């Protein structure tokens, strides 16, 4: 068993253990810590110089079917490694930030198992080097999410929300599946292995590339909440229990972006070029239209939900630029956004637990007086998410923007990509507006309803730990982006090369 296999299956084993009576919270934390350790070990042993396109490290493969060639195959390239680190960090934080067993009203086993299943699904999808399992693992999260929102979600509409996210993502996955199969058929349909796909991928005719890329863009787009396929996301994140919101918004949503970078773009470069303008228009929808929608939100949870959707626009911008800088920015932003949104949801969960609501008008304000640590950590999270230097988000966004201008270094003529970059930059202002407004409304200002808030306690140490873990990760990468970038460069350069044609 390789480390990668361990990391994918450890949460599943933990689920089995929980099912057979092992204490849920302890088991989940042990599994998450073990995964973190394994991920750390892999990072240390990951060679920075990876030579060829599609090369993966720690590869393992178990043949399941000879014809067509189907393998339970895992391995890491640079992108996977970064996303695995993201996943294990967020998983640990999510499990940790889950309420203690006594405070969960309902099936404790289900609560913790669901988080672990979502984590395992994400890890499997990021590590798989076989198209089939790449797709299949992602779906592992579908039913746990459905159950968790339906049972433990907050708000009266939680059932409708659970249905919406499940059906929407289910249909999105089906569209994606159709696209992936079409891709498979175009490559001969004999093998699911990424390596085999890359080997024949260049020969797909241009027309087929365009059609398939469009299907994949829509399919992946739905999973990433690309405008206008985003309606499932904000209410789902708002109403999901904290660990699910953290894992879903932080980690799982990155799958679609990962898929675009890892599968769609290298195999369908002409398709990517052909639909670039469409993607630019849609991502501006994410950033500008949904950014303004975010401003109009009156509840912290939907605000965070929309903000998470909005920020996807920047990742898409990096992807649309298709050059090394932009792609690095995109992947780093996936990491940074994942951590920061998970952090925000964790802290929002803490606020909800204390105040019983996340409606900003009802919350009143001045919470920082009663819970200074919560206020401070939320401030960190808010500033991280609006891209303050020192946090990984800033480095990533800067690269995305430089990436969008890089193609005209020679011509010096502004094109669609650059205009999109300029307009997207306005989103930086928008996100500052809504984040600071929320921070101001909830934490700053005079303390209202003093009596009602008399019993509000600050974060306990258990609650602080996951937040600190995430903040440290964000700042470490923010100060030294090279920590992660060095792993990405070989992989992304190869992809950027294939896009150039």
């Amino acid at each position, binding site marked *: 068993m390789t480390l990668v296999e361990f990391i994918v299956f450890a949460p599943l084993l933990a689920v089995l253990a929980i099912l057979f009576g092992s204490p849920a919270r302890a088991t989940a934390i042990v599994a998450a810590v073990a995964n973190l350790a394994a991920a750390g070990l892999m990072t240390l042993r990951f060679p920075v110089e990876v030579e060829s396109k599609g090369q993966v490290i720690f590869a393992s493969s178990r043949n399941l079917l000879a014809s067509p060639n189907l393998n339970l195959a895992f391995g890491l390239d640079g992108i996977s490694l970064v996303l695995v680190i993201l996943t294990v960090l967020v998983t640990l934080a999510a499990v940790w930030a889950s309420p203690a067993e006594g405070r969960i009203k309902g099936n404790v086993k289900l609560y913790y198992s669901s988080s672990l299943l979502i984590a395992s699904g994400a890890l499997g999808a990021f590590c798989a080097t076989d198209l089939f399992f790449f797709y*299949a693992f992602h779906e592992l999260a579908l*039913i746990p999410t459905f159950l968790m929102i339906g049972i433990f979600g907050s708000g009266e509409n939680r059932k409708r929300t659970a249905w919406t996210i499940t059906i929407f993502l289910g249909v999105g996955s089906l569209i994606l599946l159709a696209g992936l199969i079409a891709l498979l058929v175009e490559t001969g349909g*004999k093998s699911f292995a990424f390596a085999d796909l890359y080997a024949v991928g260049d020969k797909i005719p241009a027309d087929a590339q365009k059609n398939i890329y469009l299907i994949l863009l829509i399919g992946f787009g739905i999973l990433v909440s690309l405008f206008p396929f985003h309606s499932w996301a904000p209410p789902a994140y708002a109403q999901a229990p904290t660990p699910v919101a953290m894992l879903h918004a932080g980690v799982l949503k990155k799958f679609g972006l990962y898929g675009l970078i890892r599968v769609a773009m290298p195999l369908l470069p002409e398709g990517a070029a052909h639909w670039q303008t469409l993607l630019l228009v849609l991502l501006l929808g994410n950033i500008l239209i949904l950014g303004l929608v975010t401003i109009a939100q009156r509840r912290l949870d939907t605000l965070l939900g929309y903000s998470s959707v909005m920020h996807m626009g920047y990742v898409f911008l990096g992807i649309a630029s298709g050059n090394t800088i932009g792609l690095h920015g995109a992947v780093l932003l996936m990491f940074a956004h994942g951590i920061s949104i998970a952090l925000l949801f964790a802290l929002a969960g803490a606020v909800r637990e204390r105040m019983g609501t996340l409606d900003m008008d009802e919350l009143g304000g001045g919470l920082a007086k009663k819970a200074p640590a919560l206020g401070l950590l939320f401030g960190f999270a808010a500033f991280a998410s609006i891209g303050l230097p020192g946090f990984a988000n800033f480095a990533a966004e800067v690269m995305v923007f430089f990436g969008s201008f890089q193609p005209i270094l020679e011509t010096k003529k502004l094109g669609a990509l650059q205009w999109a970059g300029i307009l997207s930059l306005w989103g930086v202002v928008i996100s500052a507006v809504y984040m600071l407004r929320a921070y101001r409304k909830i934490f700053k200002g005079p303390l209202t309803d003093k009596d009602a808030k008399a019993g509000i306690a600050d974060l306990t140490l258990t609650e602080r730990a996951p937040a600190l873990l995430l903040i440290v990760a964000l700042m470490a990468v923010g100060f030294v982006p090279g920590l992660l970038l060095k792993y990405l460069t070989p992989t992304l350069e190869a992809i950027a090369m294939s896009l150039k044609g």
Partner: protein
Amino acid sequence: MPAYALEIIVFSLGLVLLLVDAFAKLEDKRSLAWLGMLGLVVVFGLLFKVEPRAADDANVFWRFYSDSRMSLFFKGIAILSTILVLAMAIDYRGLIEKFTAPAEKKAHPQAGLGEFFALPVFACAGLMCMASATNLVSIFVSLEAVTITFYVMVAYMRRNVGSLEAGVKYLILGALSTGFLVYGFAWLYGITGSMDLAEIGAALKSGDVSPTAALFAFSLILVALGFKVGAVPFQMWIPDVYQGAPTPITAFLSVGSKAAGFIVLLRLSAVFLGSEAVAGQVAMAFAVVAGLTLIVGNLTAIPQSNFKRLLAYSSIAHAGFLLTALAAAPRKLEAGQLSSATVVAFYLGAYLLMTLLAFLVVGLVRVHRDSEEIEAYRGLGKSSPFLALALLIAMASLAGVPLTAGFFGKFFVFQLAIQGGHWWLVTLAAIGAGAGFYYYLKVVAAMYWDDPTGAAAKAAAIPVSALTRAAVVTLIVLIVIAGFAPRMILGLIG
């Protein structure tokens, strides 16, 4: 041992059960079911010991009998589903007794129970024959043997109006389809001059046969077999019959009967698809029927509130996916490609696992909660977590969630359809599968989201016998393993 020995053994087993029931004066007739299961388990084991037909074996059987891997696979499906149906029947016996016990006070309460355990074994023998039939006559006879047995089994609860109504509906429409079948067979025989499928295929291929007549025969046969597998517009019987029949029989119908219907459809369609002159029309017909079936099956399932009826529509929906595979049958198979037949067989294998798992739970809930409405499943996640988990996995697999057996089936079907360029069928299938997420998860939502209401609120956990527990665990494990490694099933097909 040649393959046909198995049918003989199973048939004899059925006779033995009848005789024991008649003469042994059993106090508890469950032992009949145990005996039947034991016998079938042995036969299932023998399935792996079958010796292929020797080249010089001129036994008359081989003139209408095939022992291909595919046939053996479908025999396996028949035997397995019969075993599980018998297991279910044991749990279900209370209801059978209630609706069949003789009116006289002194009569044994199980007086009407014996045949309920014997008849499935006969049906199994018929299904096994169908799996191997390669001749119009043997197809017809084995098909009817199965169908008539099912008439009896569906209407078995003779004091229950629902069961009787189901029986009558099945009887009339089944007989109607038989009429179409034999008329079609007559024409097929007439234009090709043979009863043997291989010879018929050769005749059609040769081009001496009028394509119009051939298509006429095909359409009659399609009507009849469409009825058997539940293809739209011949699906009307399915919801009512599934709902009315005793639950183990519903399970049997939806797995065994459907599987047998498909192997016959596969065999016959191969004959027509082999002929250039008619293949286009035949594929078109399949595509139309598949599209209709996908839409009607999946969409009509959405508003259902009775779980058995929902499973009936789901059965129609799955027929839609299977027909899609037939419609998208590649003309020329390339290396590394799965044929339609393989895909259908795999799909049915996976379908067996998940459907029987679902029906196992349905039967138990019917017995202990006295209801088949989805309402009755509220709170099952709390009161009977084991059964709820089993049903959750069954539903996930039926919905086609990856890493379950059901997903691979759908995956292969999509692959065939996309390979064939049938994009509108793909679209309909995607819509159908999307709707599937809704109606399957509806049950899951009831089990886990909702608190039980009414009588169910006070009900204790549903007791699960060791046999049922073993069956449930086995099915769960198989569903998950097949979800990772389809070779488990594909390897059997060959």
